[in-house]
């Protein structure tokens, strides 16, 4: 079935098309660049849909595989499993929305802006599709350059500090990972990621390798206490930059844990599980409290991202199917919801040019449609059942409970605190009276803004009501991962015992 498909290097096209379109953008005017970028990202999305349809969840682990040797120690090797597929899909879905969000907000140096975005898209897809260790690293680090430029050129007043912080923080984390990668390539004698995922590294080496990868992924994720670059970068980046940062770039950390830390170093992961749970626990409580006192909308959402990402790390290191599936759904859901929330901030920022929460209030009167969508995304962020946030957080918490009841208790407070700061934010912006004349004069959503927010809202509800669509592609791969790490999984403290089945039907089983 996939045989015919592999003839066409579909993943290379997926990586190459934005590059070509980005180059083209540089040579045309502002308006043509906008259209080029939009059309390119829409074509990419169409290819992505086709990829999703053609992907066989019950088929081989790695599909659409391509391999082209370049030379000493690096191959152009691409291929995806279900986990990579859904994350690529998230990227492809958010990209046209980002371009649309920048349509009017960006008016200087448009061709370069669009080129930088398309370059980012290509590199992110490359990260998810790379099957060669060093190819992965090149894509992973390469994303820094366009993002550095996006924050630095088109960002807010403090953009320069934010861009440096973003670049150097993540660069520092990644070089340690490079040392570990070099060691792995020499030790295992291969740079193929699928081969390394099956390679058993010596247990005492795993400890160091795990820490080196952790240094990189924890910064990307970001985990407390190395999250401090995130609020700066988010606040200063232009709206679309924040969307892509929160929506996709933060997922690189979680993807890294799934692809490298867990399957390659199961013993190392088990050994450092208390560390991960402690940092995640602190992140959930601490950053939620910090979010509560923010006066800047973007900063508040940025801190909420750190708290949400902690659910991902909780779920991933639960070492069981529910936890990891939950972590994946939290990643997807957070990608959509935080992206949408940043867009919501962008909508009113474009009108009033301030992100100060106090300058708004009572917007449900003059912007009812906006208030409705904003409400939906707030609820999804809180984790209301029926939205995507609930599915992910619930699964993640169930998984965490299996592993550590205490961790689950701490994580659950995060849901409560999350509700507190998000509802408090919504209350201050949408409810109350229209205190400020300029805020009262703001018009409701324009057609373009509807086009940006409505698709995300639809997917958020879809994921909340019928998550099976998104769980199907990843189920087999999560199962393989769980089987891989099983030998090292620490014993949980929840001591779950199966209850006595009340129905007679199951007696047959009990009799054995």
């Amino acid at each position, binding site marked *: 079935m996939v045989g015919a498909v592999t003839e066409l290097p579909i993943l290379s096209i997926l990586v190459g098309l934005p590059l070509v379109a980005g180059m083209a953008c*540089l040579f045309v005017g502002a308006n043509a660049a906008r259209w080029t970028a939009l059309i390119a990202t829409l074509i990419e999305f169409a290819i992505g849909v086709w990829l999703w349809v053609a992907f066989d969840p019950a088929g081989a682990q790695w599909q659409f595989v391509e391999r082209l040797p*370049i*030379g*000493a*120690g*690096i191959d152009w090797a691409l291929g995806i499993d279900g986990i990579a597929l859904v994350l690529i899909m998230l990227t492809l879905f958010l990209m046209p929305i980002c371009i649309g969000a920048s349509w009017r907000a960006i008016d200087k*140096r448009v061709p*370069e802006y669009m080129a930088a975005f398309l370059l980012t898209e290509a*590199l992110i897809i490359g990260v998810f599709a790379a099957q060669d260790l*060093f190819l992965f*690293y*090149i*894509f992973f*680090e*390469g994303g*820094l*350059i366009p993002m*550095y*430029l996006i924050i*630095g*050129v088109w960002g807010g007043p403090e*953009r*320069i500090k934010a*861009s*440096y912080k973003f*670049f*150097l923080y993540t*660069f*520092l984390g990644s*070089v*340690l990972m*490079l*040392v570990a990668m*070099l*060691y792995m*390539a*020499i030790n295992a004698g291969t740079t193929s990621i699928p081969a390394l995922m099956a390679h058993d590294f010596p247990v005492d080496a795993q400890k160091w390798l795990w820490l080196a990868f952790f240094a990189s992924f924890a910064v990307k994720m970001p985990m407390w206490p190395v999250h401090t670059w995130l609020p700066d970068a988010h606040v200063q980046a232009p709206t679309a930059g924040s969307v892509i940062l929160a929506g996709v770039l933060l997922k690189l950390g979680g993807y890294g844990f799934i692809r490298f830390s867990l399957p390659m170093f199961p013993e190392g992961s088990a050994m450092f599980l208390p560390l991960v749970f402690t940092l995640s626990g602190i992140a959930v409580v601490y950053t939620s409290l910090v979010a509560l006192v923010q006066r800047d909308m973007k900063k508040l959402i940025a801190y909420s991202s750190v708290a949400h990402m902690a659910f991902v790390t909780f779920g991933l290191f639960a070492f069981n199917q529910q936890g990891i599936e939950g972590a994946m759904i939290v990643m997807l859901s957070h990608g959509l919801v935080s992206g949408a929330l940043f867009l919501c901030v962008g909508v009113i920022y474009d009108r009033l040019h301030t992100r100060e929460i106090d300058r708004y209030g009572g917007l449900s009167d003059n912007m009812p449609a906006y208030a409705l969508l904003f409400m939906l995304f707030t609820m999804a962020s809180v984790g209301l059942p029926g939205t995507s946030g609930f599915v992910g957080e619930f699964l993640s918490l169930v998984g965490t409970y299996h592993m550590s009841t205490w961790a689950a208790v701490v994580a659950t407070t995060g849901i409560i605190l999350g509700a507190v700061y998000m509802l408090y934010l919504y209350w201050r912006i949408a409810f109350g009276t229209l205190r400020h004349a300029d805020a009262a004069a703001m018009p409701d959503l324009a057609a373009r803004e509807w086009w940006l927010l409505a698709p995300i809202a639809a997917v958020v509800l879809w994921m909340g009501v019928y998550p099976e669509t998104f769980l199907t592609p990843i189920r087999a791969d999560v199962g393989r991962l769980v089987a891989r790490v099983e030998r090292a999984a620490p014993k949980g403290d929840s001591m779950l015992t199966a209850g006595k089945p009340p129905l007679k039907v199951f007696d047959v089983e009990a009799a054995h």
Partner: protein
Amino acid sequence: MNQLMPIVPEMILTVGAIVLMMVAAFAGRRGSGLTSWAAVALLLAATVALIGAPSHAGPLFGGLIAADAFGAFGKVIIFLASAVAIIAAHGWFERDAEHASEYSVLILFSAVGGAVMVSATSLMTLYVGLELTSLSSYVLASYRRSDERSAEAGLKYFVLGALASGILLYGISLLYGFTGTMGFQGIAGAFARDGTHSIGLLFGLVFVLAGLAFKISAVPFHMWTPDVYEGAPTPVTAFFASAPKVAAVLLATRVCLEALGPATDAWRQIVIVAALASILLGAVAAWGQTNIKRLLAYSSINNVGFALIGLAAGGPKGASAVLFYMAVYVVMTLGAFLCVLRMRGRNGRPLESLDSLSGLSQSRPAFAAALAIFMFSLAGVPPLFGFWPKLLVFRAAIDSGLVALAVAGLLGTVIGAYYYLRIVKIMYFDEAPATLYRVRAPVERLLILLAALIVSPLGYLLIGPLGRFADRAAGSIF
């Protein structure tokens, strides 16, 4: 006659340089265009003549030099870099009516010296090659006699260079005295026999390395570099940062691995300290610089540190990594200097301050993009090609068990990234109007484009061929 065949490239350059010297003497200033292009043609001819050379591998003239693949690799880089330095100068001195034709001749002699250095297998030829390069360099540094900074640079370079040559000679005399031979093979044999118990041998080794460290401007023998790079005319600086540096690094590699191979433990610690100190100082000292030539001087110190990591790793893999590193380094650094050469203010006055670059991305997007590519590449940020040689040296280091060195070196890249980013920041983020004026120089434009293409991700296509060439070259000294 058989002995002469492998040194045809050097002979082409030597004879050509002598003839051009005569032309320069008789034609005077009018002959400058002719001598420049003739010199470029000679260098290209010498490069072509190299193609047959590796097949003649083996000791020549009783073991004075070896025309092996290692030497050929170095010579290709040296000749091409020298040609670029001549082309770059052609547009430079012309404008100041100061371009005496001797410039190309001096570069040719320096290139011959570099060629002798990379193929030397005896301490005597090593010294002759080194001095040939150095003497030409001293004159080149003070080429602009009327400029105080240039004269100062030349004098400083000469005094310190002479001191370093003295140290080197002292080391050579010790090595000769305690081994009774000048040949690398003989010295290696003596070290294998006596080990490093002999204080005399050990002293000789340290002094030779100190002298070489000066030539490659590794910390702590780097003091002259920023001043000389800043003071010398920019095309000369571009030359210093490329051809002689490659020659010196390759020479140091050959001395360490071929002559001092059995004493690896003795020199490895020296090289490690020099490497880390160079990386760190090159990165930190560049932070506060406001002159782009000074900044690139520190960048070259920083880069030599990375190449030395490959040397510290030793073995064929380490040597291959050093060769690969230097090849890519030369492309990046020449590209950057060609960009600096195009920084001109009103009336074509050369500018060197970083501030003059501000807002460049708006007024000259292609120029800014090229310089940004070189900066990111020098910083070693993937997906640019500058990342790959760094990966190779670190891979060699980890392969030799020097994990701590690799970690320290990689942390150094992060510190260094800061100042490369600063240049990008000035060009892209700052709003001040650019003060740069356009320069018409189609050949340089083409060279910059070529260099940018090589260090762009397209460069990864070179990994295969360049890697094989480097491996073969590295294999020839073991």
